[in-house]
């Protein structure tokens, strides 16, 4: 199995024997050891219930929200053990974007972008706030669309715009890594392609780790792909290689649509 896992030098994220169980002994993620390359787009693929989301959430410790969850093994972000980091610092370094766009309904577009600062009670100057808002919205190519309505509610935007707003909210903290949990599954095709372009653009400054159900999306935008099945990491390597020449039979069957 080892030969199916690509070795990466200077990874930004690495997991060592990471196992996660929702109930005792019922593992959703089994012994996953993987290194994620800096400034790349890495797609996590696999059929429903294979532990993709759980694995992703383990990286910023969002999985700890579930009761009775048990985690074994280690996760390193930027060389540091995340279990020893403060949650707020960890989540500032690893921003997260969810399946459904979830801007805060009570906040304006402006406040949504700096929500991380506002809600945590981090005081920054007005000028700095303006800069963060402009930079983050420019990064997600939303600035031109909303610059005249920054103080309108974020929920007035279209689904695709809302999702880009949520990405901007994650970017506002200037994270190292952006974790995306099927970010386009609730969004129309045109908005999806905008977000895909955006992710490719963002990898210059950030590392992107994305769960996706959509194989063609993984093929279009990811540099590396990770295939999981029943909680195990089956195969990990350059997307091109994996799609043209999968090493594991299960990967091949999934990619050719035999299951999943």
């Amino acid at each position, binding site marked *: 199995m080892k030969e199916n896992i690509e070795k990466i030098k200077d990874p930004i994220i690495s997991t060592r024997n990471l196992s996660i169980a929702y109930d005792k002994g019922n593992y959703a993620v089994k012994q996953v050891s993987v290194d994620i390359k800096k400034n790349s787009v890495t797609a996590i693929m696999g059929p429903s219930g294979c532990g993709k989301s759980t694995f992703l959430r383990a990286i910023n410790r*969002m999985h700890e929200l579930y009761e009775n969850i048990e985690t074994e093994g280690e996760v390193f972000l930027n060389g540091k053990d995340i279990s020893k980091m403060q949650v707020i610092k960890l*989540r500032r370094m690893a921003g997260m974007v*969810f399946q459904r766009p*979830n*801007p*805060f309904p009570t906040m304006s577009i402006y406040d949504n972008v700096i929500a991380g600062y506002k*809600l*945590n009670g981090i005081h920054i100057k007005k000028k700095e706030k303006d800069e963060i808002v402009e930079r983050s919205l420019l990064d997600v190519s939303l600035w031109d669309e909303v610059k005249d309505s920054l103080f309108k509610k974020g929920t007035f935007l279209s689904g695709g715009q809302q999702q880009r707003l949520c990405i901007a*909210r994650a970017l506002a903290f200037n994270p190292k890594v952006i974790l995306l949990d099927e970010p386009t599954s609730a969004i129309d095709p045109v908005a999806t392609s905008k977000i895909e372009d955006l992710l490719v653009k963002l990898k210059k400054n950030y590392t992107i780790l994305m769960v996706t159900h959509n194989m063609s999306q993984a093929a279009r935008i990811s540099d590396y792909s990770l295939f999981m099945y029943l909680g195990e990491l089956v195969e990990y390597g350059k997307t091109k290689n994996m799609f043209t020449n999968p090493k594991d039979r299960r990967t091949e069957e999934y990619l050719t649509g035999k299951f999943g």
Partner: protein
Amino acid sequence: MVSIKRTTIRDHAHRRILKDKLIFGMVIFLSMVTISPIILIIAKLVINGFRQISLNFIIQNTPGTFEAMTAVANGELIPGGIANGITGTLLMVALASVIAIPIGVVTGIFLYENPGKFIANLTRNVADILQGIPSIVLGLIAYIWVVKGITNGFSALAGSVSLAIMMLPMIIKSTEETLKMIPQTIKEAALALGVPYYKVILKVLIPTGFSGLLTGILLGISRIMGETAPLMLTALGSTVVNFDISKPTSAIPLLIWEFYNDPNMVSLIWSSSLLLMGVVLLLNLLSRQLANSSI
């Protein structure tokens, strides 16, 4: 053959249409029956009470029996108003809200956060039971606790405590239900930004569900505003405006009861009821409006 079949089909169609009309007529009729009491009540109150309503009615205290008797004998309007009742109701409702809202909202949050826990289920059931306790019993309890125990006499505080206990289960329920309506994803969004749990509740969940919370509170207020029985045992009543919470205090529903018992003041019943009903109706409409505008 064919023509026979056609007639039978047509017969059935005719019967179905007739049935449909009959049922529709019944629905309309029963709806009318349902809404007619409220229309009749409002009409009666307006017709009988409107004459008495004036500025004086709101800013003056209740008249003495003798004054009222003379006025009625001379065919004039009864002088004076129900300022003591209005201020008493406002004072006691405000105090009851101050007691019940924080406790109710915090309990509601607790129930929302720990849905399956034993203590939460127990609390929820107790709140349900509390809602079913007759209000006169709550008055009795407040009498024992506050009138006998704290203020050594009938007082606004005792009235407020009994009203607060009535209001509590409503606020607990509405808080829990409102928070349940907020999508889990909103909570996740805040947590993914590293926001500590208590700040997620204070700065995200409560503002997001604010109109829902307010709806519950307004409904609770409109409910306790008309309560009479517990106040008879606790606040007792007063002929003057009183803002001292340790003294007996009047309230609009208490005054209505007093007017009912005094043959000279009967016409004040209608105007007081009209005022009370108007305020309660307004609060209900307002909370409805808020509920519609919430997510």
